[in-house]
């Protein structure tokens, strides 16, 4: 499709902006002004609308396609939450408004939303306090690691390492490293969970913290999680819970009860806010009481008279992790979702997410290798090793799925499974959709046996065929 710059014609305008009811001001000294105008495109509104509408048609989304992207929880995004986040009584508020004199009183509704959301997230996870400031999962991780550092610094304890299992998300080691820690990777055992002996060997008083996903990226809940947490605590290390997989356990287990000190949640996963094509999300962080004093500035505080205010006087806080109060528009959507679901609804969400995953896994058995196939939580990992022997790799299966109208699952992750395909159906998919996916996957497994070469042509139905990624990196054409 043409680029928007290629559609541009001099003199066209997409919107008339309010101008000119005041006298024109004297020109700026040219030393301060740009020599040439910015070469933004010039188009009329109908042309802009058609261009982006056409672009949108070249995208798979949850509303149009089954999207079982493992570890990403691509569930349905309820429409009512979009309407609520667009209320001008929230969307039009300037973030500095509550920092004016008595300003908290000018934004009581927004502060109440944040405070109430923090409270329900505490109850869901078993933590004592939450901050809504982190703007994504990885941002929450970084916040969490900084809280770990603040805790040890307060004790005058200089620790060097963060332990992370080999099945962990890539953001975990990256977050630990940019916060100044060295990372030690712990292998998984033959059951797919962190190897207890390895863990014992590495656990000592140089370890600042342990970052875990539970259930992990193989969809396995480690029944010895508490034992692991106790070991870490005995050495003075803190336990960090990567909440990417919370959709599996609402009402069934809480990180706070499992021995975790810090947790981040991905509101765009478990709490149904849209992924937006890669963001914005929200990654609130919860802590146990002993870490609350380190939480980012500011904090929403409820006064005795029931009104809310912002507290900036927090001497031990790690400081400003965010410009303001987090991705407020996203927080509002997640809060609305939680209110609609309620207690029973959230439990039902997790039960059905786990049921859908187990149903799929059981039905794919025999057609694909499933290295940890006993039972799973909300997601599971199959391996295309068998198909790979015929020359059909995970990426080939993925591209074939696109032609069948299915967004491919996550591939080549976690790293400890060869030819991995990581499948997370979520609770919002119907049995018919799951059955169709099974039918397609079996058909592809059969095709891999009969005609493996056919896969190299997929996808055939999209606007472009398989793209040359090597050329993209070599030519580095990243702007027009």
């Amino acid at each position, binding site marked *: 499709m043409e680029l928007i710059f290629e559609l541009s014609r001099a003199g066209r305008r997409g919107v008339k902006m*309010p101008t000119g009811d005041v006298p024109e001001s004297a020109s700026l000294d040219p030393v301060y002004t740009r020599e040439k105008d910015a070469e933004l495109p010039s188009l009329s509104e109908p042309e802009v609308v058609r261009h982006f509408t056409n672009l949108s048609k070249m995208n798979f989304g949850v509303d149009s396609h089954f999207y079982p992207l493992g570890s990403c929880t691509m569930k349905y995004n309820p429409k009512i939450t979009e309407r609520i986040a667009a209320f001008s009584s929230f969307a039009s*508020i300037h973030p500095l408004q509550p920092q004016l004199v008595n300003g908290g009183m000018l934004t009581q509704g927004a502060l109440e939303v944040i405070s109430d959301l923090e409270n329900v997230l505490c109850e869901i996870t078993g933590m004592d306090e939450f901050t809504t400031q982190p703007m994504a999962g990885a941002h929450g991780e970084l916040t969490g690691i900084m809280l770990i550092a603040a805790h040890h610094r307060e004790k005058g304890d200089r620790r060097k390492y963060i332990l992370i299992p080999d099945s962990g998300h890539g953001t975990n080691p990256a977050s630990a490293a940019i916060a100044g820690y060295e990372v030690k990777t712990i292998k998984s055992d033959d059951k797919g969970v962190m190897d207890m002996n390895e863990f014992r060997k590495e656990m000592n008083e140089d370890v600042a913290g342990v970052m875990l996903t539970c259930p992990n990226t193989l969809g396995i809940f480690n029944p010895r999680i508490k034992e692991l947490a106790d070991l870490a605590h005995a050495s003075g290390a803190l336990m960090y819970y990567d909440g990417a997989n919370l959709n599996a356990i609402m009402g069934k287990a809480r990180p706070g009860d499992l021995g975790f000190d810090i947790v981040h949640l991905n509101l765009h996963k478990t709490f149904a806010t849209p992924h937006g094509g890669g963001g914005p999300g929200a990654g609130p962080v919860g802590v146990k009481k002993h870490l609350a004093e380190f939480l980012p500035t500011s904090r929403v505080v409820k006064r005795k008279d029931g009104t809310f205010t912002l507290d900036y006087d927090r001497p031990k806080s790690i400081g400003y992790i965010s410009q303001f109060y987090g991705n407020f528009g996203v927080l509002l959507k997640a809060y609305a979702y939680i209110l609609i679901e309620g207690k029973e609804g959230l439990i039902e969400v997790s039960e059905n997410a786990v049921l859908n995953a187990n149903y799929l896994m059981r039905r794919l058995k025999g057609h694909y290798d499933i290295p940890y196939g006993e039972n799973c939580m909300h997601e599971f990992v199959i391996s295309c090793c068998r198909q790979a022997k015929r020359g059909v790799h995970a990426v080939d299966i993925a591209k074939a799925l696109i032609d069948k109208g299915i967004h491919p699952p996550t591939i080549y992750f976690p790293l400890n499974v060869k030819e991995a395909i990581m499948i997370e159906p979520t609770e919002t998919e119907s049995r018919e959709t799951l059955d169709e996916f099974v039918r397609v996957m079996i058909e592809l497994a059969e095709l891999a046996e009969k005609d493996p070469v056919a896969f190299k042509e997929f996808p055939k139905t999209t606007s472009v065929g398989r793209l040359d990624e090597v050329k993209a990196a070599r030519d580095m054409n990243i702007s027009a």
Partner: protein
Amino acid sequence: MSYIPNSIEDRQEMLKAAGVNSGKMADLFKNIPRRLQPRSFDLAPGRSEFEVEKYLRGLGKKNVTDLVYFIGGGFYDHYIPAAIDALTSRSEFYTAYTPYQPEASQGNLQAIYEYQSCICRLTGMEAANASLYDGGTALYEAAMMAIRITGRNKIIIDGGVSPIYRKMLYCYTSNLSIDFIEIPVSHGQSDRVELDKRLDEETAAVILQNPNFFGAIDDHADICARCHNSGALVIESVYPIALGLLKTPEAMGADIVTGEGQSLGIPLSFGGPYLGFMATKKKYVRKMPGRIVGATTDKNGNRGFVLTLQTREQHIRREKATSNICSNQALCALRALIYMALVGKDGLKEVASACRDKAEYTKQKLGEIKGVEVKKSSPTFNEFTVKLPENANEVIGKLIGKGIAAGFPLGRYYADMENYMLVAVTEKRTRHEIVRFADALEAALWS
């Protein structure tokens, strides 16, 4: 209530098919030992969407929302064209995720490529990423990038950089050994003399902002030249709407450019979601954090787009990545792109001029009030500093009662500026509103 399609009967049959012969959901969770089950899960029962909408509409009414904004501080009340909301409401955009599968995500990828291109055209730079969380995190990432490029460890921050950004920089680097030096502004602009004294062979970067937090505009070309002589980079934080008029950071010689993208068609929304943009020179691209989209071809030679240079990123490099960032602010970047496309080349210049004209008019009106001093030591774009004869916070409080958010009290961040406020004017403000503001200020001070 929930968004689960499967009926109770479906679930029963599926449980059996999944090998749970008891037909009990609980048996799906048998790996969770009984003693680890929740100690509490005390949440309210679910409600209908109607009830929740009504409840939250009620909470919204507790916010005061009919204020005429003259507050900025880096976040501005600009007009948002309707087509932005209409187009970003297309669920093919907003219910997708990071384009890991390029053939199924060409819409998103091409949009990001166009966004990157617009950011380059706006700033004059050669390469931009797909966006970061916000202006503050973009500035922090830029500082880390400069440290990686130069192998040096000292960062000089101009006093005109937003105090919010400075607090964020210190927060993020509190466990790293980086030397920060702050140089207060001199007569509203960057203090060249002091900067020269502190700039040395250890300096990784100097961070500047244009217009600066107090609204002053500057030409940093001389500073860029001096930095480059010492082998230091220049990071320039900019306000995108102002670039409709102002000299580009590229023309000044900046190496890394960042900024808050909220003003490009993104609602104020109580602080987020926004986006942080980042652009640089082509030679530094491999040190840049965040997603980057590149153009390539398929085997038939058709143009297409992919995520590229991914060996910088966490999902490949893990602890050796340039950043831990995993997402971008894709939907916000889409809003910014559509904004730039609708406003276009001529429109951006007009919006910027309208902002400045209205700000100059406001300066004039406020300056006519007895005891009110509009700071004039340097030219400004759409924001400026005003000295009042009494505590700014209290004056602003009085004007709130008249429906006017008069400005931001600088005493909030600067102890010696209790009587100062920062006033911002966008193209949305009318002559009538400006006059009303001036009249209300005069009344608050003198009657």
